[in-house]
Protein backbone atom coordinates (compact mmCIF):
# COMPACT_ATOMS: atom_id res chain seq x y z
CA UNK A 1 0.00 0.00 0.00
CA UNK A 2 2.78 2.40 0.97
CA UNK A 3 4.76 1.62 -2.17
CA UNK A 4 1.69 2.04 -4.33
CA UNK A 5 1.06 5.46 -2.83
CA UNK A 6 4.65 6.49 -3.48
CA UNK A 7 4.37 5.33 -7.09
CA UNK A 8 1.15 7.29 -7.58
CA UNK A 9 2.64 10.46 -6.13
CA UNK A 10 5.77 10.00 -8.25
CA UNK A 11 3.68 9.57 -11.39
CA UNK A 12 1.66 12.66 -10.53
CA UNK A 13 4.80 14.68 -9.87
CA UNK A 14 6.44 13.65 -13.11
CA UNK A 15 3.37 14.16 -15.29
CA UNK A 16 4.08 17.86 -16.02
CA UNK A 17 7.67 17.00 -16.94
CA UNK A 18 6.43 14.45 -19.40
CA UNK A 19 3.96 16.95 -20.82
CA UNK A 20 6.76 19.44 -21.40
CA UNK A 21 8.57 16.93 -23.55
CA UNK A 22 5.71 16.99 -26.05
CA UNK A 23 4.99 19.56 -28.71
CA UNK A 24 3.91 22.96 -27.51
CA UNK A 25 0.37 24.11 -28.05
CA UNK A 26 0.21 27.81 -28.87
CA UNK A 27 -3.18 29.48 -28.71
CA UNK A 28 -4.18 32.88 -30.07
CA UNK A 29 -7.42 34.65 -29.24
CA UNK A 30 -8.28 37.70 -31.35
CA UNK A 31 -10.48 40.35 -29.82
CA UNK A 32 -11.73 43.68 -31.02
CA UNK A 33 -11.73 46.20 -28.20
CA UNK A 34 -13.77 49.35 -28.51
CA UNK A 35 -15.89 51.80 -26.64
CA UNK A 36 -19.05 50.68 -28.36
CA UNK A 37 -21.92 49.26 -26.39
CA UNK A 38 -22.72 45.60 -26.37
CA UNK A 39 -23.32 42.63 -24.17
CA UNK A 40 -20.39 40.57 -22.89
CA UNK A 41 -19.35 37.59 -24.95
CA UNK A 42 -19.24 34.38 -22.96
CA UNK A 43 -16.34 33.17 -25.06
CA UNK A 44 -14.26 35.93 -23.51
CA UNK A 45 -15.36 35.49 -19.94
CA UNK A 46 -11.98 34.11 -18.89
CA UNK A 47 -9.99 37.03 -20.21
CA UNK A 48 -12.34 40.00 -20.36
CA UNK A 49 -12.20 40.73 -16.65
CA UNK A 50 -8.43 40.90 -16.81
CA UNK A 51 -8.45 43.10 -19.88
CA UNK A 52 -10.90 45.43 -18.17
CA UNK A 53 -8.48 45.81 -15.30
CA UNK A 54 -5.76 46.92 -17.70
CA UNK A 55 -7.52 48.82 -20.47
CA UNK A 56 -10.23 51.43 -20.56
CA UNK A 57 -12.15 49.88 -23.43
CA UNK A 58 -15.76 49.31 -22.58
CA UNK A 59 -16.51 46.47 -24.97
CA UNK A 60 -14.60 43.41 -26.09
CA UNK A 61 -15.83 41.47 -29.11
CA UNK A 62 -14.73 37.97 -29.94
CA UNK A 63 -13.21 37.93 -33.41
CA UNK A 64 -11.74 34.47 -33.64
CA UNK A 65 -9.10 32.16 -32.35
CA UNK A 66 -6.61 29.62 -33.54
CA UNK A 67 -4.27 27.05 -32.16
CA UNK A 68 -1.21 25.26 -33.41
CA UNK A 69 0.91 22.41 -32.17
CA UNK A 70 4.43 23.63 -32.60
CA UNK A 71 7.57 21.59 -32.04
CA UNK A 72 9.90 22.94 -29.39
CA UNK A 73 12.12 24.10 -32.23
CA UNK A 74 10.38 24.79 -35.48
CA UNK A 75 7.81 26.85 -37.31
CA UNK A 76 4.06 27.02 -37.09
CA UNK A 77 1.34 29.39 -38.18
CA UNK A 78 -1.94 30.35 -36.57
CA UNK A 79 -4.50 31.68 -39.01
CA UNK A 80 -6.88 34.32 -37.71
CA UNK A 81 -9.84 36.16 -39.27
CA UNK A 82 -9.41 39.17 -41.51
CA UNK A 83 -6.25 37.94 -43.18
CA UNK A 84 -4.34 38.02 -39.94
CA UNK A 85 -1.94 35.29 -38.94
CA UNK A 86 0.70 34.65 -36.37
CA UNK A 87 3.91 33.05 -37.52
CA UNK A 88 5.53 31.30 -34.61
CA UNK A 89 9.15 30.18 -34.67
CA UNK A 90 9.96 28.23 -31.57
CA UNK A 91 13.58 28.24 -30.46
CA UNK A 92 13.47 25.79 -27.61
CA UNK A 93 12.99 26.20 -23.92
CA UNK A 94 14.85 28.50 -21.58
CA UNK A 95 14.29 28.37 -17.89
CA UNK A 96 10.97 26.60 -18.25
CA UNK A 97 9.68 29.14 -20.76
CA UNK A 98 9.22 28.72 -24.47
CA UNK A 99 11.57 30.96 -26.42
CA UNK A 100 9.86 32.00 -29.63
CA UNK A 101 9.85 34.61 -32.32
CA UNK A 102 6.33 35.84 -33.04
CA UNK A 103 5.42 37.67 -36.20
CA UNK A 104 1.95 39.17 -36.47
CA UNK A 105 1.07 39.46 -40.13
CA UNK A 106 -1.88 40.93 -42.00
CA UNK A 107 -1.76 39.57 -45.53
CA UNK A 108 1.74 40.55 -46.62
CA UNK A 109 2.26 43.25 -44.03
CA UNK A 110 4.22 42.66 -40.90
CA UNK A 111 2.49 44.41 -38.04
CA UNK A 112 4.58 43.29 -35.12
CA UNK A 113 7.65 41.14 -34.61
CA UNK A 114 9.01 40.10 -31.25
CA UNK A 115 11.05 37.56 -29.37
CA UNK A 116 9.41 36.33 -26.21
CA UNK A 117 10.01 33.89 -23.41
CA UNK A 118 6.51 32.59 -23.17
CA UNK A 119 5.46 30.86 -20.00
CA UNK A 120 2.59 28.43 -19.88
CA UNK A 121 1.40 30.18 -16.73
CA UNK A 122 0.24 33.48 -18.19
CA UNK A 123 -0.59 34.93 -21.61
CA UNK A 124 0.92 37.79 -23.55
CA UNK A 125 -1.41 40.43 -24.94
CA UNK A 126 -0.52 41.95 -28.29
CA UNK A 127 -2.44 44.94 -29.43
CA UNK A 128 -2.89 48.31 -30.85
CA UNK A 129 -3.83 47.51 -34.43
CA UNK A 130 -6.68 49.83 -35.49
CA UNK A 131 -9.62 47.97 -36.95
CA UNK A 132 -12.73 49.89 -37.84
CA UNK A 133 -13.85 51.80 -34.80
CA UNK A 134 -11.94 49.55 -32.46
CA UNK A 135 -8.57 48.04 -31.83
CA UNK A 136 -7.44 44.51 -32.41
CA UNK A 137 -5.95 42.56 -29.52
CA UNK A 138 -4.43 39.09 -29.63
CA UNK A 139 -4.09 37.11 -26.43
CA UNK A 140 -1.28 34.65 -26.99
CA UNK A 141 -0.56 31.74 -24.70
CA UNK A 142 1.49 28.58 -24.69
CA UNK A 143 0.05 25.48 -23.10
Amino acid at each position, binding site marked *: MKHLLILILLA*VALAPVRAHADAVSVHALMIEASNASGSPDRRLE*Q*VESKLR*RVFQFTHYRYVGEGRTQAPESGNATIALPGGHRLEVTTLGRRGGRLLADIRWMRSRDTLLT*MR*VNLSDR*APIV*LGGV*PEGSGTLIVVLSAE
Partner: protein
Amino acid sequence: MKTRDQKLLSRALDSECSEAQRRTADALLATDPDAKVLQETWSELGDRMRSLPAPVVDEELAWMNVQREIRSGRAEREALAGVFGPRLAWAFGLGLVLFALSILFVLRQEWTGDPRFARSATPINQVEWVETGIPGATTMIFADASTGLTVVWMDVENGVRINDKLKPAEET
Protein backbone atom coordinates in the same frame (compact mmCIF):
# COMPACT_ATOMS: atom_id res chain seq x y z
CA MET B 1 7.02 -19.57 58.43
CA LYS B 2 3.87 -19.99 56.45
CA THR B 3 3.52 -18.80 52.89
CA ARG B 4 0.41 -16.90 53.92
CA ASP B 5 2.46 -14.93 56.44
CA GLN B 6 5.15 -14.22 53.83
CA LYS B 7 2.53 -12.82 51.45
CA LEU B 8 1.14 -10.72 54.26
CA LEU B 9 4.57 -9.29 54.98
CA SER B 10 5.14 -8.61 51.28
CA ARG B 11 1.87 -6.70 50.99
CA ALA B 12 2.69 -4.78 54.16
CA LEU B 13 6.08 -3.77 52.75
CA ASP B 14 4.41 -2.58 49.58
CA SER B 15 1.70 -0.79 51.59
CA GLU B 16 -0.91 -2.82 49.80
CA CYS B 17 -2.78 -4.18 52.81
CA SER B 18 -5.72 -3.07 54.86
CA GLU B 19 -5.47 -1.64 58.34
CA ALA B 20 -6.45 -4.98 59.89
CA GLN B 21 -3.83 -6.81 57.83
CA ARG B 22 -1.33 -4.19 58.83
CA ARG B 23 -2.01 -4.82 62.48
CA THR B 24 -1.67 -8.57 61.91
CA ALA B 25 1.66 -8.04 60.16
CA ASP B 26 2.92 -5.85 62.99
CA ALA B 27 1.91 -8.52 65.50
CA LEU B 28 3.68 -11.13 63.42
CA LEU B 29 6.85 -9.08 63.28
CA ALA B 30 6.71 -8.56 67.04
CA THR B 31 6.33 -12.22 67.83
CA ASP B 32 8.16 -14.08 65.03
CA PRO B 33 11.93 -13.46 64.70
CA ASP B 34 11.98 -15.18 61.29
CA ALA B 35 9.37 -12.74 60.05
CA LYS B 36 11.47 -9.86 61.29
CA VAL B 37 14.57 -11.17 59.51
CA LEU B 38 12.61 -11.72 56.31
CA GLN B 39 11.21 -8.21 56.37
CA GLU B 40 14.65 -6.70 56.92
CA THR B 41 16.09 -8.78 54.07
CA TRP B 42 13.37 -7.65 51.67
CA SER B 43 13.75 -4.03 52.74
CA GLU B 44 17.48 -4.21 52.14
CA LEU B 45 16.94 -5.75 48.70
CA GLY B 46 14.47 -3.01 47.82
CA ASP B 47 16.93 -0.33 48.87
CA ARG B 48 19.64 -1.89 46.72
CA MET B 49 17.43 -2.10 43.66
CA ARG B 50 16.34 1.50 44.01
CA SER B 51 19.96 2.58 44.24
CA LEU B 52 20.85 0.91 40.92
CA PRO B 53 21.11 3.23 37.89
CA ALA B 54 18.18 3.29 35.47
CA PRO B 55 18.50 0.79 32.62
CA VAL B 56 20.06 2.28 29.52
CA VAL B 57 18.15 1.83 26.27
CA ASP B 58 20.37 0.45 23.55
CA GLU B 59 19.16 2.37 20.47
CA GLU B 60 20.94 0.09 18.05
CA LEU B 61 19.35 -2.92 19.63
CA ALA B 62 15.94 -1.23 19.56
CA TRP B 63 16.35 -0.41 15.87
CA MET B 64 17.35 -3.99 15.13
CA ASN B 65 14.19 -5.11 16.86
CA VAL B 66 12.13 -2.79 14.67
CA GLN B 67 13.82 -4.09 11.54
CA ARG B 68 13.21 -7.63 12.63
CA GLU B 69 9.54 -6.90 13.14
CA ILE B 70 9.28 -5.39 9.67
CA ARG B 71 11.08 -8.30 8.09
CA SER B 72 8.96 -10.78 9.90
CA GLY B 73 6.00 -9.46 7.95
CA ARG B 74 4.13 -7.67 10.63
CA ALA B 75 1.62 -5.24 9.34
CA GLU B 76 2.90 -1.73 8.73
CA ARG B 77 -0.09 -0.51 10.62
CA GLU B 78 1.40 -2.06 13.76
CA ALA B 79 4.64 -0.16 13.25
CA LEU B 80 2.66 2.99 12.73
CA ALA B 81 0.68 2.27 15.85
CA GLY B 82 3.95 1.78 17.68
CA VAL B 83 5.07 5.27 16.73
CA PHE B 84 1.84 7.19 17.05
CA GLY B 85 -0.20 4.93 19.27
CA PRO B 86 -3.17 2.93 18.06
CA ARG B 87 -5.56 5.85 18.30
CA LEU B 88 -3.37 8.26 16.38
CA ALA B 89 -2.46 5.78 13.66
CA TRP B 90 -5.80 6.11 11.87
CA ALA B 91 -5.67 9.88 12.24
CA PHE B 92 -2.24 9.91 10.65
CA GLY B 93 -3.56 7.74 7.82
CA LEU B 94 -6.51 10.06 7.36
CA GLY B 95 -4.17 13.05 7.29
CA LEU B 96 -2.07 11.34 4.66
CA VAL B 97 -5.12 10.68 2.52
CA LEU B 98 -6.28 14.29 2.87
CA PHE B 99 -2.81 15.51 1.95
CA ALA B 100 -2.79 13.33 -1.16
CA LEU B 101 -6.27 14.55 -2.08
CA SER B 102 -5.22 18.17 -1.67
CA ILE B 103 -2.27 17.59 -3.99
CA LEU B 104 -4.55 15.97 -6.54
CA PHE B 105 -7.01 18.86 -6.21
CA VAL B 106 -4.30 21.44 -6.84
CA LEU B 107 -2.96 19.48 -9.80
CA ARG B 108 -6.47 19.05 -11.14
CA GLN B 109 -6.92 22.81 -11.00
CA GLU B 110 -3.69 23.12 -12.91
CA TRP B 111 -4.80 20.62 -15.52
CA THR B 112 -8.44 21.45 -16.01
CA GLY B 113 -8.43 25.18 -15.36
CA ASP B 114 -7.85 27.53 -18.22
CA PRO B 115 -4.06 27.73 -18.19
CA ARG B 116 -4.07 31.10 -19.86
CA PHE B 117 -5.85 33.00 -17.15
CA ALA B 118 -6.22 30.90 -14.05
CA ARG B 119 -2.70 30.83 -12.72
CA SER B 120 -0.07 33.18 -11.45
CA ALA B 121 -0.88 36.83 -11.01
CA THR B 122 2.76 37.84 -11.34
CA PRO B 123 4.15 38.82 -14.73
CA ILE B 124 6.24 35.91 -15.82
CA ASN B 125 6.59 36.33 -19.55
CA GLN B 126 9.61 38.14 -20.91
CA VAL B 127 9.71 40.11 -24.14
CA GLU B 128 13.31 40.35 -25.33
CA TRP B 129 12.64 42.72 -28.18
CA VAL B 130 9.81 43.95 -30.34
CA GLU B 131 9.59 45.75 -33.67
CA THR B 132 6.73 47.03 -35.72
CA GLY B 133 6.45 47.10 -39.47
CA ILE B 134 3.93 49.94 -39.45
CA PRO B 135 5.59 53.21 -40.46
CA GLY B 136 5.50 55.80 -37.73
CA ALA B 137 4.33 53.38 -35.10
CA THR B 138 6.13 52.85 -31.84
CA THR B 139 5.96 49.94 -29.46
CA MET B 140 5.61 49.66 -25.74
CA ILE B 141 5.91 46.72 -23.38
CA PHE B 142 4.50 46.57 -19.91
CA ALA B 143 3.50 43.99 -17.37
CA ASP B 144 0.53 44.24 -15.09
CA ALA B 145 1.25 42.57 -11.79
CA SER B 146 -2.35 42.35 -10.67
CA THR B 147 -3.47 40.30 -13.66
CA GLY B 148 -0.19 38.67 -14.67
CA LEU B 149 -0.64 39.99 -18.19
CA THR B 150 2.31 41.10 -20.28
CA VAL B 151 1.21 43.59 -22.91
CA VAL B 152 2.99 44.43 -26.16
CA TRP B 153 1.30 47.48 -27.62
CA MET B 154 1.72 49.47 -30.79
CA ASP B 155 1.16 53.19 -30.80
CA VAL B 156 0.06 53.75 -34.35
CA GLU B 157 0.35 57.27 -35.62
CA ASN B 158 -3.07 58.86 -35.72
CA GLY B 159 -4.37 55.63 -34.33
CA VAL B 160 -4.87 54.20 -30.91
CA ARG B 161 -2.37 55.28 -28.30
CA ILE B 162 -1.80 53.06 -25.33
CA ASN B 163 -1.62 55.95 -22.89
CA ASP B 164 -5.12 56.90 -23.92
CA LYS B 165 -6.42 53.43 -23.43
CA LEU B 166 -4.69 52.28 -20.26
CA LYS B 167 -6.53 52.73 -17.06
CA PRO B 168 -4.97 55.14 -14.60
CA ALA B 169 -2.51 53.45 -12.29
CA GLU B 170 -4.69 53.75 -9.22
CA GLU B 171 -7.50 51.91 -10.94
CA THR B 172 -5.51 48.98 -12.27
